[in-house]
């Protein structure tokens, strides 16, 4: 198996792990972290696609850079909402969650 294929599969695996966490975990903080893992998975797929050619393809790298900016903004927004949410809404044992 080539190096690129290993990275591609790892990226896919990270995406699935994150998806699992997002669905299964009840705590909102864990859900946000799970989304970040999914982000990393997608970025890894993009970067391994870029590495297929020599020199590496710049377009996926530019996409990852932009993607990181988007992911950071989204995470920041999610964390702010988590902080200002009334505390009972972030409780892991919220009966309505």
């Amino acid at each position: 198996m080539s190096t690129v294929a290993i990275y591609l599969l790892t990226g896919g695996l990270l995406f699935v792990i994150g998806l699992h966490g997002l669905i299964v975990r009840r705590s909102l903080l864990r859900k946000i972290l799970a989304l970040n893992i999914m982000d990393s998975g997608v970025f890894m797929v993009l970067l391994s696609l870029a590495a297929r050619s020599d020199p590496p393809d710049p377009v996926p790298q530019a996409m990852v850079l932009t993607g990181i900016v988007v992911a950071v903004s989204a995470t920041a927004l999610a964390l702010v909402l988590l902080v200002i949410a009334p505390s009972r809404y972030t409780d892991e044992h919220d009966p309505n969650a």
Partner: protein
Amino acid sequence: MDLSLHPHWAVWCIVVPLLASGLAVLVPRWGKTVGVVGALLTLLAVGGATLHLLAHGPQRIEIGGWGAPLGIQLQLTGPALMMLWMTALVSVPITLYACDYFVTRSQQLRFWPLWLLLWATMNMLYLSADLFNLYITLELISLVAVVLVALAGPKAIRAAIRYLLMNLLGSLCFLLAVALMYGAYGMLDIKMLAEQVEATPLTGLALALMSIGLLLKSALFPLHIWLPPAHAGAPAPVSAVLSALVVKASFYLMLLLWLTLYSSLVTHGLTTLIGVLGIGAILWGSVQALRAARLKQLVAYSTVAQLGYIGLAITLIDVAAWQPVLTFMIAHACAKGAMFLAAGNFQRAAGHDRMALISTALRALPVSVFAFALAGVSLIGLPPSGGFLAKWLLLSAALDSGRWLIALALVGSGLLTALYIFRVLERAMRPGANLQPVGRVSPLMEWSAFGLGLLAILLGFAGVGITQIVAEWPV
């Protein structure tokens, strides 16, 4: 000077609200003025883009002179123009409404920049021509929409977080699909990709990921669970924007991708699946709307149901393509916008929106009740409204292609809609004590809701124009 010759009207459709948004951040006390002037100028830019399209046909603009594959391109097509019009027509009354709706200073400070930014990002989505840019616009729309939901205060935060998580999941599925498409074909431009796409398993996986992501954002049953709390919990003008416009953006994108990129992969089975989900949405949404304990919940569940029609319309894209779906989206946007604005008025006057006690507020605001009724006529699909025209187009497409079941679902679901609309209107007729208003509803708030409701009816007469523009300049 011939206005249709100005080459960059489409760009102004994005730049005007974006600049206005920036100005509203810099000079917060001008927020209202900037909002209203920005809205009118954006309407003007959409008008200019229309003149350009009518005179010169579809257009490609290379931003900064950089062409594909590295540069960012915008494209103005018939369907994109219709979406720009839908956004502008609904946004102007909502902007006027918001002038009087937000009473606290902190809400005003936050609302205007975010709202104008949301408008700019929606226009950007309709005009984008490459997959990655589309991902960016999708993500921007969700982030801004989430903050707007959170404006309603502590009660809405939880709905906002749920909304954010679901939308981020949808965007990520879309982004992974974009990565797969780039990996397979080495390009992102939709038009160039459409010529290259082959029915391989990898492309199929990308199609599946994109569709799931976009259906999640469009809240098609059973992926709708995040919608009712977010749309019912947001401030009234924001509810109107979310239900009327934001959910349509992802549906439009899905339709665009299915009709261009993946036209060779979209099988009968796949569209049938969406149709079945659509019927599920109509039934589930209508039943929940009939049971809702609060007025805004009722209107939000009605959105879930009405989005089911778009699902049904997708089963007909092989025979009817864009026209019925676009007509339906525009008609629903006007009607649902009017409904949420009217519901906001009742809520403001009564201090709550509980169905059991809402009738005093309904009696006190006849203009808003009329607006709600006009919107209801369009949602039910009675002539001569925009909703009637959309259903007529869908029905004739279904009958022409011999799909009786879809035709039956279209007719039957109108009755369900009528039931929950009359559940509200009936309360306006009940006798009872006079209302002691809790909050003030200004004439502007009443008449902007009425204007949108009237628009939903008048659209029934404008349908020919929509059909022609879309048919003449498809993607």
